[in-house]
């Protein structure tokens, strides 16, 4: 920055100017990656830090030099101060040590670039007056727990307020110094001080957020963005910005900013679409373009003041809209991540439940196979002994072998039933109507139920068609009806009755099947474990019927439960959602 207060009498106070994109790339290369690398090489940190300091100093001086190079005679103004913005960002990132950087930068700029006519004492005093308040402001922000990534509105407000306070203190200090200097005559100290504040503030509000964001940018993430849409959109935004700048430039030919407000459109658009980063980038581009415009066409002091004011408003608007949008985007991302986590957890739970079912079935299978195997082996071993005896007991051996065959057939039957279920473990969806489903199922079990002198009836309020595996749902209903009829006949209930019905329910859209009976009810201790494999209340049961029912219903996205277990009005219910996905 240097002392950019204008001295109309001296006439050699260079304004600052734009810098091209290659310089911006150097900013990125020099400052973006340090944080991570530092931690790895703490021992080598000092040389690296020195290199970075040298690079920052060089950058600062090149800003000053560019300003000086593009100075145009007669208009000694300071539209903005990008070098200060960069150093201020480093003060926030690297801490108060960078204050020395600012101090050295100002001194060197005065000496090398501006070719000052101040004495050394004055140069050092000016440098200290500038460096101290900014260093203190940055340190205060660090203690205020400002997020350096500027993710919240609070952080941006702290940055802007702290920057403003420091800029005001600096300009007052410089004005005081200049008043004290007897060499300087006829100074419009008031106006100069105000212009200095605004110029510094624009530099801070445009460059500091940009550098802070770049320092924390993870460029790898850019590539992961949904590729197709992003690049064209960025180009569209750049084109819009270009058009707005062109309109402003055309109107500027008259020497005034007639259509400056047009710039709000691309800036706000960039902020809305790309959040804080979009706003920072668009603001920096706009700022460089407009300063270039001022240098090209020249402007009087009034125009510069107007430009500064407009730019400050534009910058504040862009940054605040940007950070708001970023906050919202971040919240959206967090919500999405949370939703995904929840979904994953649900899937895991379902997986675990399925695994429990499968391992439970394996255990049940082992038991069901083991029993006949044990019997068959013992019988065959006894037959072997009987045949080896002298004389062999042929009738007894033959009888034992016959019983062994029955046992092996029994084991085969268990395996076949299990295989039938496993083969149909995945539902094969087709369109099923509730009326047809109930009618067909009742037809299948009527014989079995009536043999037990139990009355069976079916009812469907309306004929709803839905996607399901018909055979599997039939299996569920058959199982429930069979259990009910068996319980009724086992308890010797005279006027036994089983009723199957389907009901369409909403929110969520689903069909609820009910199987009610007037049997002996369900024992409370069995109720808790009835859907787990191997638990059975029957003497001859496998303990697999209800677990298989539950597995089928769950594979359809529904659930099954015992609605009522009291004797006389026992009722099982299960639901099948209507909008469930095709397949588990």
């Amino acid at each position, binding site marked *: 920055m240097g002392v950019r207060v204008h001295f109309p009498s001296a006439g050699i106070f260079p304004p600052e100017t734009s810098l091209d994109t290659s310089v911006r790339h150097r900013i990125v290369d020099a400052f973006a990656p340090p944080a991570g690398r530092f931690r790895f090489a703490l021992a080598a940190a000092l040389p690296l830090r020195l290199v970075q300091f040298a690079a920052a100093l060089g950058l600062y001086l090149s800003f000053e030099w560019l300003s000086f190079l593009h100075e145009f005679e007669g208009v000694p103004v300071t539209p903005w101060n990008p070098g200060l913005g960069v150093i201020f960002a480093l003060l926030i990132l690297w801490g108060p040590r960078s204050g020395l950087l600012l101090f050295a930068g100002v001194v060197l700029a005065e000496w090398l670039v501006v070719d000052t006519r101040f004495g050394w004492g004055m140069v050092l005093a000016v440098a200290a007056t500038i460096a101290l308040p900014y260093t203190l402001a940055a340190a205060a922000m660090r203690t205020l727990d400002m997020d350096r990534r500027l993710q919240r509105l609070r952080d941006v407000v702290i940055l802007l307020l702290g920057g403003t306070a420091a800029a005001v203190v600096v300009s007052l200090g410089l004005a005081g110094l200049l008043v004290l200097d007897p060499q300087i005559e006829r100074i419009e100290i008031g106006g100069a001080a105000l212009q200095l504040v605004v110029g510094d503030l624009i530099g801070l509000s445009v460059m500091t957020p940009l550098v802070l964001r770049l320092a924390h940018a993870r460029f790898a993430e850019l590539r992961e963005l949904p590729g197709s849409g992003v690049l064209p959109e960025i180009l569209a935004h750049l084109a819009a910005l270009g058009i707005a700048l062109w309109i402003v430039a055309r109107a500027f030919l008259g020497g005034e900013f007639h259509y400056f407000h047009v710039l709000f459109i691309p800036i706000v658009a960039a902020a809305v679409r790309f959040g804080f980063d979009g706003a920072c980038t668009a603001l920096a581009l706009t700022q460089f373009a407009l300063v270039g415009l001022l240098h090209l066409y020249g402007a009087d002091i009034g125009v510069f003041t107007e430009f500064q004011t407009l730019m400050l408003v534009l910058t504040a608007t862009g940054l605040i809209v940007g950070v708001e949008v970023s906050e919202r985007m971040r919240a959206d991302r967090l919500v999405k991540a949370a939703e995904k986590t929840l979904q994953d957890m649900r899937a895991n739970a379902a997986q675990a439940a399925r695994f429990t079912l499968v391992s439970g079935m394996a255990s049940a299978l*082992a*038991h069901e196979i*083991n*029993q006949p*195997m*044990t019997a068959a*082996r013992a019988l065959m071993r*006894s037959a072997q002994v*009987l045949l080896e005896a002298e004389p062999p007991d042929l009738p007894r051996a033959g009888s034992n072998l016959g019983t062994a065959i029955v046992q092996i057939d029994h084991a085969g039957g268990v395996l076949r039933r299990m295989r039938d279920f496993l083969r149909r473990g995945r539902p094969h969806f087709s369109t099923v109507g509730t009326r047809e489903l109930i009618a067909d199922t009742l037809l299948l079990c009527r014989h079995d139920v009536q043999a037990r002198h139990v009355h069976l009836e079916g009812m469907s309020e309306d004929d709803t068609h839905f996607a399901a595996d018909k055979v599997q749902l039939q299996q569920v209903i058959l199982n429930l009806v069979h259990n009910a009829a068996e319980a009724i006949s086992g308890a010797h209930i005279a006027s036994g009755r089983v009723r199957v019905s389907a009901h369409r329910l909403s929110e969520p859209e689903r069909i609820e099947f009910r199987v009610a009976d007037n049997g002996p009810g369900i024992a409370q201790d069995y109720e808790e474990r009835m859907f787990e494999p191997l638990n059975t209340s029957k003497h001859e049961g496998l303990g697999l019927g209800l677990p298989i029912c539950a597995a089928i219903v769950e594979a359809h996205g529904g659930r099954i439960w015992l609605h009522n277990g009291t004797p006389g009005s026992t009722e099982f219910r299960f639901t099948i959602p209507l909008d469930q996905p095709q397949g588990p």
Partner: protein
Amino acid sequence: MPAPSSRPTIFVIDDQESVRHALGEMLGVFGFTVETFPSGPAFLEGVSPEASGCVVSDVRMPEMDGIELVRECARRGLSLPIVLISGHADVPMAVAAIKAGAEDFIEKPVDDAPLVAAINRGLMRAQEERSRTASQEQLVARYERLTQRQREVFDMVVAGYTSHAIAETLEISTRTVESYRAQIMEKMQAESVAVLVRQSVELERASSS
């Protein structure tokens, strides 16, 4: 004194009829006397307290599982060895079974060789136990035939006192002590003082058990 002559019986317990029938048939063909029961309580109700033999029981049964059965037999003082068989054999179950006092733990489907080995081991152990109990009981009976004075002398003899020392302590003549010693040796059927000492150890064990 229980008669060890009664033939040992194998008690097969399984809730599934086919299994207990088949195991019973096999063990019967092997030459064992077999009785089958559908459950632990049915067995406890049907078995006589003096029964000798071995129990072969399933673990997973309704009402009372095999491990509970082992504990219940111990509680009732039934000294029958119990071999457990299970289709769901896992380490915790086997540990629980052995801790409860089961003779062995065999997986279903049962291989007859280890089953028969376990049964024979159990029968042998029960037999040894029984004969040891029998000889202890015999010894106690002999000891009880001694008079009060003879018991005092017995205790001092096995404690290592000489006849002279015993006579002095009991304030009787050495000759009388010698005659007591002869009576004790005869009643206890001991050939030497060494045998008497061993008998006294056995007696102590019998009275403590």
